């Protein structure tokens, strides 16, 4: 079964990037006391933010795929540097769900899979899709669910 990230995920990420870059621009404007150089720097930062939010992030979301097989989970992601993570279900120790207020408003959540050392993070899946994925994962007796 294949899972992909939806347009809601893209919206959440773009909102986060917008807020982060606005805060950075405000800080720069205050730091440089609203002179000409500060506006040039802010403009450059805004262009960078726009490029990231409208260029890189949509491609990343489109390339992110999760394939859940009977015994294994395959996660492929990346834009410039591609990676494929192969995760046997027996190796998952804990499965964790996280939702901030913004994510709860948009009905998405983050899923974190604990492996031997470290976590594998699946970003901003829709609640329904997350539930399907977790049902597939927790069908194995060695996987534990923690909310």
């Amino acid at each position, binding site marked *: 079964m294949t899972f992909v990230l939806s347009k809601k995920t893209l919206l959440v990420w773009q909102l986060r990037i917008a807020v982060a870059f606005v805060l950075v621009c405000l800080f720069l404007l205050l730091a440089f006391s609203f002179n000409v150089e500060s506006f040039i720097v802010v403009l450059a930062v805004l262009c960078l933010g726009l490029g990231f939010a409208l260029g890189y992030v949509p491609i990343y979301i489109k390339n992110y795929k999760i394939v859940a097989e009977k015994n294994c989970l395959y996660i492929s992601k990346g834009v410039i*540097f*591609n990676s494929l993570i*192969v995760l046997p279900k027996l*190796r998952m120790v804990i499965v964790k769900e996280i939702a901030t207020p913004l994510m709860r408003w948009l009905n998405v959540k983050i899923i974190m899979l604990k*492996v*031997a*050392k470290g976590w594998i993070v699946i970003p901003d899946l829709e609640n329904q899709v997350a539930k399907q994925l977790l049902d597939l994962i927790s069908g194995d007796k060695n996987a534990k669910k923690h909310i």
Partner: protein
Amino acid sequence: MQKSTFKAHPLTVFILMRSYWFIFASPILRIIVEYIAWGDTKIISTTEALAVSTVIFFAICGWASIRIDIVDDLVIIKRGGFIKSCSKIAVSKASVIYLKRNFIDILFKSVGCFVGLQAYNSDKSNFKIKLKHKDVNKMFPQNTNGDIYPVKSNRNRNRFFLAPMLIALILVSLKTAFLGVGEIWVTAIFLLIDAYYAVVCYYNYKKGQLHIQNNIYAVGVKGFSRCQFFCHKNKVGVIKIFQTPADRRLKTCKIKITAYSEDAKSIKIKNTNLKNAIDVINEKLNLKIRV
């Protein structure tokens, strides 16, 4: 009942001293700070000398007390100069055996050995030790039953020269743009770094191997250290396949195999032929990786 006994290599003393690095670092830092502040410094005080000699003494005692007995399927590790401990590990419970050899190890004929146990446990019951090279060959025979799978890519030979040449070109251009044509020593440093990168790439290409039968045996390179990785195929944790834009062009990849153990020891095999590597992993580990 077959029994073999092994002793640790003297370089283990440095591994045992590693936890107390601050005792060696603090006199050096003090000397630097005093010299900068007052222009004059005392080389070493009595307290510092006492602390350093105590650590060295206990490390030597610890090294001398290490004894590894292998009895049939059981590994018994005894250690501790004053507070003695004895660990018994069933070979079947070991998730991963990781061997590392760098220049110093080659010079002193030792091998850095790490044995990881399965399951996640904060007690850190695995062990890290330096063994003699001849003992390692007896303890861990290389698992090369069957064929060597052709995961290396011949097309990647050119990367040893193309990538470093490209990097050299970029660095020298940047340096010329900012510092001018002079400052020849900066160019020399860049070229040295570049030569190092080319040699490491070539060494990686030559040494990288992957064998999968009942166990996984992989050889990777970290800098100039040769690393060997033994893991039962049922104790594989996570497999990552990583591609840069150059890898996508050359249809190669980097594989990282992590064992299911406390320290999650992993091995990276670079410049592998993507299709061959995936076919081997799918067939031997019963997976369905599709790229």
